[in-house]
């Protein structure tokens, strides 16, 4: 395991790695990218993928996730309730509905997908299908 002397070094290295992958063409034309809600970061973890989706203020109950082959659909709504009889000084948060489809360029095992929602982040664990894993070929 890599160790960092300073946690800020780890943060910097991570931010730089993210930046290098900003809107790369890794997903190709298969996913509606750029500007679509919710924003998604995709990571590789060994053979598998982890997608981390940012959606603060979304209720878990308002979230609908479906998976089929290499396609994952994330739909739902974000509601903001302001109490009655208040005067709004600042309103930057947005509410509304969303429906986004993520197509990953590898075969995933739909049965093995796990979703976890915590602190406004949705983490999707996308295991690579056994038949899609690379194999080493022996040269005889």
């Amino acid at each position, binding site marked *: 395991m890599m160790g960092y002397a300073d946690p800020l070094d780890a943060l910097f290295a991570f931010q730089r790695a993210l930046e*290098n992958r*900003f809107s790369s063409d890794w997903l190709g034309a298969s996913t509606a990218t750029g500007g679509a809600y919710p*924003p998604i970061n995709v990571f590789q973890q060994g053979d598998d993928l982890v997608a981390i989706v940012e959606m603060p203020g979304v209720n878990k109950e308002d979230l609908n996730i479906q998976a089929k082959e290499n396609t994952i659909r994330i739909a739902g709504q974000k509601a903001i309730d302001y109490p009655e009889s208040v005067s709004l000084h600042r*309103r930057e*948060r947005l509410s*509304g*509905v*969303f429906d986004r489809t993520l197509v990953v360029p590898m075969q995933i095992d739909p049965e093995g997908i796990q979703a976890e929602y915590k*602190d406004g982040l949705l983490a999707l664990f996308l295991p690579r299908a056994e038949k899609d894993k690379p194999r080493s070929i022996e040269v005889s």
Partner: protein
Amino acid sequence: MAEKQELQVQQKREVDKEQEATAPTRAFMPNADIFESEDALTVVLEMPGVDRDRIEIGVDHGVLTVEGNIDFGKYEGLQPVYSEYYVGPYRRSFRISNQIDQDKISAEMRDGVIKLVLPKAEQAKPRKIEVRSG
């Protein structure tokens, strides 16, 4: 009711730095809603990925500062392959008036959204004035 609006992505804004930081990391400004009722000011901030234990709230010289830190340990062993949003600590400050009872500020966190309630000091609350018959 009108048709539900489709959500748009809000790009993260970087915090304006007063001084240069020693490390080249970036902090971001959380989106905020602020509303006022008769007896309190409420500040709502979006800080996705921030755990309740990593929030710091302070009031200094009439400035309320809220900081949220990310546990980068959770990203260990993950190689970024595609990215649409930045990840980093959040920070935002607001100047608050002396009408706020600073000792009674409370906060709660849910789904990456922190809500701070800043109660008004007694003398700042609107009051009804009775007219006595003379």
